[in-house]
């Protein structure tokens, strides 16, 4: 700070352009410095995972440079991808995520549209209520959920515990409030005249939603979709609490419970499984990145 002031003082006679561009350069240097620092900080774990996944158990245990692979092998990948368990986890995760995303988006888009546009008695309170629901940590919810499941079992005889598909009904408790909140923001930022124009043009509420609101708020819908997918793909607590049999597990829990046997950590396979598990969200992010960023900033200025 002091050096900047001194420099401005020194260059006043020379002309302001020089000092401004120099100040900009200095700011850029610092930006780069911190950005590189953060990139290293955040990329270190995945890189380490990749390195470890390419090693044999023997090499992982050996006292060598941990950042270098001396005898690269795909053995871990082959073992995991040919193991029936891992593929079951993957399938469970995929089915759960796809269904949760679809369910959440249908519910939250409809909810958000009605809360944002159809002013009805209590709509504002409901909208706030939806958001407050999101603020409740999910760790607080799983005990009541257990109670509900027990009650359902007692009254109807339907067993909900230890079935992978029950997650399809559990995850929306996390995704729907947030997605609805995002979508309320988006829909509110669409000018009122647009639905009035559509109304006069002859559209009903459903047509206004499908032919005007959804296309216009597409970035928001994509942002919400990515969020819902990430939550349902990566959630650990609920599947850990509600599923136990090996064939009912989803990926995050499956990797941890089946690859750690007692106190034996099969690091190579754990890392491989984690990397493979991280791949789908990564691929989806990469495809939707531009929309996602546009979506986040559009939501930031309004709602």
């Amino acid at each position, binding site marked *: 700070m002091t050096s900047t002031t001194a420099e401005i003082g020194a260059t006043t006679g020379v002309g302001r352009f020089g000092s401004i561009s120099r100040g900009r350069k200095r700011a850029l240097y610092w930006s780069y410095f911190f950005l590189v620092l953060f990139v290293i900080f955040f990329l270190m774990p995945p890189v380490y995972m990749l390195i470890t996944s390419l090693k044999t158990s023997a090499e992982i245990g050996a006292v060598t440079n941990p950042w270098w692979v001396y005898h690269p092998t795909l053995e871990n990948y082959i073992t995991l991808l040919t193991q029936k368990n891992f593929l079951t986890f993957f399938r469970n995760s995929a089915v759960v995520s796809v269904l949760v995303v679809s369910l959440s988006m249908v519910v939250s888009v409809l909810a958000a549209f009605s809360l944002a546009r159809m002013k009805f008695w209590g709509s504002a309170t409901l909208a706030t209520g939806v958001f407050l629901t999101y603020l409740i940590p999910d760790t607080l919810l799983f005990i009541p959920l257990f109670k509900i499941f027990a009650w359902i079992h007692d009254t109807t005889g339907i067993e909900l515990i230890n079935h992978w598909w029950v997650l399809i009904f559990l995850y929306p408790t996390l995704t729907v409030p947030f997605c609805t909140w995002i979508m309320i923001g988006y829909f509110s930022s669409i*000018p009122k*005249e647009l639905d*009035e*124009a559509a*109304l*006069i043009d002859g559209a009903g509420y459903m047509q206004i939603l499908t032919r005007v609101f959804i*296309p216009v708020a597409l970035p928001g819908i994509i942002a919400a979709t990515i969020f819902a997918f990430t939550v349902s793909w990566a959630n650990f607590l609920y599947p850990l609490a509600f599923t136990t049999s090996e064939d009912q597990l989803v990926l995050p829990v499956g990797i941890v419970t089946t690859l750690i046997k007692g106190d034996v950590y099969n690091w190579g396979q754990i890392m491989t499984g984690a990397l493979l598990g991280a791949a789908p969200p990564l691929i989806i992010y990469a495809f939707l990145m531009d929309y996602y960023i546009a979506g986040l900033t559009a939501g930031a200025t309004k709602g």
Partner: protein
Amino acid sequence: MAQVALRKIVKTFDKTPAVQGIDLDIADREFIVLVGPSGCGKSTTLRMIAGLEEATSGEIYIGDQLVNDVPPKDRDIAMVFQNYALYPHMTVFENMSFGLRLRKFPKPEIKERVESAARILDITDLLQRQPKQLSGGQRQRVAMGRAIVRNPKVFLFDEPLSNLDAKLRVQMRTEIKKVHQKVTTTTVYVTHDQVEAMTLADRVVVMNGGRIDQIGTPHEVYHAPRTRFVAGFIGSPAMNFMPCRLVGNNGSLSVQLSDKLRFPVPQDRVARYSGHVGEDLIFGLRPEDIIEKRGDLPPGRAAFDVLLEVVEPMGMETMVYFIIDGVEVCGRVNPTAAGNAGETMPLVADLNHMHLIDPRTDLVL
């Protein structure tokens, strides 16, 4: 093609009255402009005709049908909004054809109607563009096109030009007039710009505080305003208002503006004002009726000298401001005749165009 009728229309928003009992008959193919300051209820009135707001009480007729409970899409109206309200994800063609597509018109007819509207508005080569690629004026044309293709009974315009810059606004104003001459449809147009109202309207409806102050042709509202509000609102610069006293002597009348200044009332107005002799009134005279002195005074004109406070050259004319008895008054003089600020200048008031207003009722006498 239809006439529109409003009967005792009232609209209140949470106990705040916005429109307080409006009666209005709009003839078939007529171009009506609702004009007034913001908050006068003109937009609310338009939105009630569109069906976007429900009237608290009263009746709205389009054609012969009572439409109070008819949803907007079944009222057969088209509306142009201030911010265009184009669907951002659709091309111009899709925007214009949206209403027809929703109503399941056959494709060839949609194409034909859109193209013919595009020709009227001169936007044929924009049909495949997206709204974001268009300028403000082009967007406004598309918004009008969307209304025209529907071939509705009534066009509704809600301040369509106020988002455009001054020059474009004048252009589009002419454009709207041309379009109305080609596509003669009953039109209700809302604006706060009295110049737009004057230039476009068959009849102007001047609204103030949720009520109609006057309905009349542009000529009528300009030259024969019914209330002080209309007199002050229509015309730019606004009409000068000066407190005065009406004095009578031997069958002739005069208005006393200050100790020194007294204007004779023209003979043909004496009968009209004679009942108000001795009353404190408001004297109204438009700036264009206060001009420089040249040659002899025709009947009904009175000369007086003023001390110029401010002089504003506008090019084709010059505005001069001076004080009469503490009130600032504006005159409109020939640029060559205008003096400088601080100088005395001889002026002439054309009293054939004077107005007297009763301050208790705000009505023009």
